[in-house]
């Protein structure tokens, strides 16, 4: 299907077509990649010297989209665990919609 790429508002009908088309494109791409499945390895995260030590002082900012930034208190771990809807000693239990703002 050929069309021009100029911006226009999208109707509900076109939205459905776009969704189907996107899935179709992704299917064809995935099929091509599946031909080299055997040659692929699991991606690894190369940390080397890139791992950062968390400072005891807070270096976290909250960005207000309407202007300015404010510094948050505590380490980023404490802030994240403080906001978490459910937690254990070393992990956070997150549910969709459960995270408080």
């Amino acid at each position, binding site marked *: *299907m*050929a*069309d*021009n*790429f*100029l*911006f*226009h*508002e*999208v109707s509900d009908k*076109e*939205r459905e077509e*776009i*969704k189907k*088309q*996107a*899935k179709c*494109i*992704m299917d064809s*791409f*995935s099929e*091509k*990649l*599946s031909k*080299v*499945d055997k*040659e*692929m*390895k*699991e*991606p*690894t995260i190369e940390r080397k010297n*890139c791992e*950062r030590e968390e400072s005891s002082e807070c*270096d976290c900012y909250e*960005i*207000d*989209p*309407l*202007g*300015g*930034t404010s510094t948050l208190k505590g380490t980023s771990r404490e802030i994240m665990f403080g906001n978490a809807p459910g937690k254990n000693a070393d992990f956070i239990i997150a549910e969709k919609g459960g995270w408080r703002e």
Partner: protein
Amino acid sequence: MSVKNYLDKIKKENKKINAFLQIDENAKGSGKGKLAGKVIAVKANINVKGMNTSCASKTLENYKAPYDATVIKKIKDEGGIIIGMTNMDEFACGGSGETSAFNPTFNPAAPGLIPGGSSSGSASAVAADFCDFALGSDTGGSIRNPASHCGVVGVKPSYSSVSRYGLIDLSMSLDQIGPLAKNVSDAALLLSVIQGKDDKDSISQESKKIDLKEVEKIPKNITIGLLDYKISDKKIAEVINKKVEMAARKYGWMVKKIKIPYIDLAIEIYYPLVYVEFFSGTRKFDGRRYGKKIEEFAGPEVLRRILGGSEISKAEYAGRYYHRALKAKKLIEEEFSKAFKKVDCIISPTVPRLPHKIGSKISVEDMYSYDVLTVPANLAGNCAISIPAGKIEGIPVGMQIMCDRFKDEKMLQIARAFEKI
């Protein structure tokens, strides 16, 4: 040229180019530093405090940046003058400059044809002489592609060498901010200012500082790898081959053809990654705290990526799309790593085809194929530059020079040597 002269020129000529979405009538700099008096245009997805970072979308039409991106802070600290925000493909989704919600950008170097994208306005602004240089962002070729079509220089720095703090992301595992300029020396100057580690971008790393004097020296004992890749437009291949032959003869450089296995799968690897990461990154545009809900105001290409990304990241498809693409990305990285043990740089056309007419009907697959030679550098994290190589019937053709990760200075040196031929 002074800021006032540039502003006058923009006011007079921007209507026919549409390179700028917003200009700063009161633009001024400190007058001190490496960029003192230099006038810089900024792609509308990079935050400049007080300016409209709209991403050329109705979603963020009235969004004013509350802070400066790290690259902007660095530019201002060195006396650079930010003159305005440039047009682009909506949320950087596009390679033609046509998908902006505020009308397409026009190509000053090839009237009637696309300028390329997604940093369309930045490339056009440089080509139209509206500024000294510009900033763009490059996820799969968004700096190099428009640089090629507009006949200017565009650099995608090594992944993680320039901070993305303050960039509205398309795909965080691939995005990189970089310069567009009228020549290699100017691009090197701007890159030398914006590079460096930044704690606000967790993946950023310190890399070798670019020495501008070194960039001007002709490098010796260079082995060029001429990419062995079939391009249907033979005229484009001829322009590149001729340029490489001239450089080899003049400088005594060696040339050998080089194949990069799996490079023909670059598009198939790239787009699943972008669809999923873009879908994830746009969840913040829900219209509650600022802007509008993206799904209700975005154009077709943005929606394609959001709806496609939402679909293929469902748990039921685990391992089939994103994860498979991630694994294949590693293959490309490894092949480039092997190639750079044999050659100093890899050269190809930047774009394998000439730009189409603005508003032409074109399939999604054909549109995506514009990126086939630029995407690999993003997948491998290498640095890459596009420089003007010649013209075909008056249409600019760009040549891409790729070097290994963090070899940005060597890449600029080779590019500068080509420029001196």
